[in-house]
């Protein structure tokens, strides 16, 4: 199985740059996700890898082989879409057998392989059913079985489960992971759903406006987002992004948030010690803090407290709450661990966990820790 290499890949539709100078290396046997909002270029990228979309500029390699000019059929890839595209006049068996049949493989061999993959995908009992009468989850499994029966070198999935219901999505997610763990086929998975990418992929490439924002493991992207876009895109509930200023008080760095001074996060201190010139007076920055990284109190007893009002409480199952806190004109999301019981329209006292504060450049959105080693 090869790795997949994209070199300076560009795609233009008229004057629009759908994909701009993309450089990526997807490892052999890796489960790799392309993640981003609609229109970010993830599907165009996948379609170029599949050979369904002409490449404006750049190259694609599978291992050492340049496949840029190869037609889809010669790339040894399998593609599964969101809308299955099953043959509705055929039964499950014939749908799965189709790719082998058009290759003129002997029918005994086809039979063996169909039964093998059907067993693996838990479709054995419904092989003779017409695909029209299957549930969404079953149709999806048939689509995946049909794609995998060819033993492709690279498996491409384009939003395969985005429109399934929550419960079905949950079980399909586990199923796709199980398939990958067992078959170990290099898999490229396109999705706009950050939870899907986070929970399934070994590495994620986050895209926006045709450009790579960050490539990393789910933990890296969540814990150390390179910019404001990645920070806001990954995590549910989404990260709070608010205006803050950095200033010095008695030679100590401080953060000012909602006109309150709080401790400056230690992990960013080195950035400013090295580069003191940027701190003449105040420096305005974007502060990012995840809803789970805020502690709540009923009283104002602690240091570094920010005060707000409980505007809305979303109960989550498991006794947790997502609290919408109004601070001036700003709405801040806080996720509690269940021990704190909020009350509507009452004062709430918040403390940001210092180590989990992220700071971004106000103009470029780049994480301020990018100046130092990450």
């Amino acid at each position, binding site marked *: 199985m090869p790795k997949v290499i994209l070199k300076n890949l560009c795609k233009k539709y008229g004057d629009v740059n759908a994909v701009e100078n993309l450089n990526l290396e997807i490892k052999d046997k890796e489960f790799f996700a392309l993640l981003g*909002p609609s229109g970010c270029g993830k599907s165009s990228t996948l379609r170029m890898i599949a050979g369904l979309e002409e490449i404006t500029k750049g190259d694609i390699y599978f291992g050492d082989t340049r496949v840029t000019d190869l037609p889809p059929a010669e790339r040894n890839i399998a593609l599964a879409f969101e809308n299955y595209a099953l043959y509705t006049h055929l039964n499950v068996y014939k749908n799965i057998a189709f790719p082998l049949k058009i290759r003129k493989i002997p029918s005994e061999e086809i039979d063996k392989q169909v039964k093998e993959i059907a067993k693996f995908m838990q479709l054995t009992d419904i092989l003779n059913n017409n695909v029209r009468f299957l549930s969404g989850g079953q149709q999806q499994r048939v689509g995946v079985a049909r794609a995998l029966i060819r033993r492709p070198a690279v498996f491409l999935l384009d939003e395969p489960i985005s429109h399934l*219901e*929550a*419960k079905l999505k*949950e079980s399909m*997610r*586990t199923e796709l*992971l*199980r398939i990958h*763990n067992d078959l170990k086929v290099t898999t490229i998975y396109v999705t706009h759903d*950050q*939870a899907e990418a*986070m*929970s*399934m992929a070994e590495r994620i490439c986050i895209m926006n406006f045709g450009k790579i924002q960050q490539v990393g493991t*789910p*933990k890296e992207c*969540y814990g150390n987002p390179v910019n404001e876009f990645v920070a*806001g895109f*990954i*995590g*549910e*509930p*989404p990260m709070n992004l608010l205006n803050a200023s950095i200033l010095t008080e008695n030679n100590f760095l401080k953060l000012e948030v909602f006109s309150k001074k709080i401790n400056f996060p230690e992990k960013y201190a080195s950035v400013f010690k090295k580069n003191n010139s940027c701190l003449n007076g105040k420096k305005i920055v974007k502060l990012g803090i*995840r809803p*789970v990284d805020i502690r709540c109190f009923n009283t104002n007893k602690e240091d570094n407290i920010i005060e707000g009002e409980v*505007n*809305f409480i*979303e*109960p*989550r*199952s*498991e006794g947790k709450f*997502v609290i*919408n806190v109004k601070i001036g004109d700003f*709405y801040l*999301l806080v*996720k509690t*661990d269940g021990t704190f019981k909020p009350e509507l329209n009452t004062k709430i006292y918040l403390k940001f966990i210092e180590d989990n504060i992220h700071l971004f450049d106000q103009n470029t959105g780049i994480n301020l820790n990018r100046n130092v080693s990450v």
Partner: protein
Amino acid sequence: MAKIMLEEVTKTFGENNVINDLTFTCNDGEFFVILGPSGAGKTTIMNLIAGLEEPTKGFIYLNDKVINNVEPRHRNIAYAFENYSLYPHLNVYENICFSLKSPIRKDQFSKEEIDVLVNEIAIQFQIKELLNRSITQLSGGQRQRVALARALIRKPEVYLLDEAIAHLDAKLKHLTRAILKGFQRQKRITTLYATPDQLEAVALGDRIAIINHGILQQLDTPEKIYKYPNNVFVARLFGEPAINTFPGELYSKDENILININGTPLVLPDNAKEQLCTKNIGSHVIVGIRPIDISIIREVDINKYSNIGIGEIKLIEYFGDSFIYSIKLNGFSFKIKSDQELDVEINKKVNLHFKMDNILIFDESTEKRIWP
């Protein structure tokens, strides 16, 4: 004042009973959520209340008066759909104020009053800067907020909102839920809200009616439904990941009632004895246990716990602030959820502790809850 009541309502399309003998009451001022998977009949219920469909059997009441034969426009109901149905030839402003200018409300509002109302609701839904834009220039999320504003600008007796925030991204969804709930609390207008999303239902609903195949499964507050689901379907709908369900067998030993899950015995809490009478003993049941109620414990702590099993880790899913572990035990697959990353490896054995306080037991054939 608006109370909506459905009494033994059935709606048939061809041979399909889309709604089956449905009875419920939505109280005045209530935020009433209708939750169910696609195809459950949620939209049909909304259409019946709006008057866009007629019931095949049964009665619909508005404040104790049958409204089966009342024309939609005389029902004083505002309706917002998932697919917006905005007027593409009008701009955002004109779309929002459209209902205020309709012939049946002619001269009710002056131009200045309309302007105040449009601006007020546009600020609330954060679309003020879009007021002069054409609908065709808007994103899906923006259209959805315009559709909401258009429906909510009137003060009817009832709001019907059908998957009204389905197309918003995560950030806007949170904000819009808060705005919507705040708005409803302030105006106290009876609101029926249909959604397939349990998170949304729990976040918004004073009470939730769970529908499947056109049949009411349960109607209660979110807390009650989570704790005491009527059946397996309802139990699985609430909570993420879904509750684990296993086939099991009830038996008694040393004055205790136990469940045997394919060889792993679990002791039920003492208070189960009173409720699970002798006729349940020996019977096959479905056991439900939530992913947060199973924990992985260290070998050294094993003597501190009862209700232990040995499983094998199959998959680990990471979600930023939580982890979900897929585990195999005695041939059954199930999931555990933890806020912390556990020191485990795929395909390795682990000791599991089952917290029995929140365990649910269902009848094997009817799938109805028999305990607690």
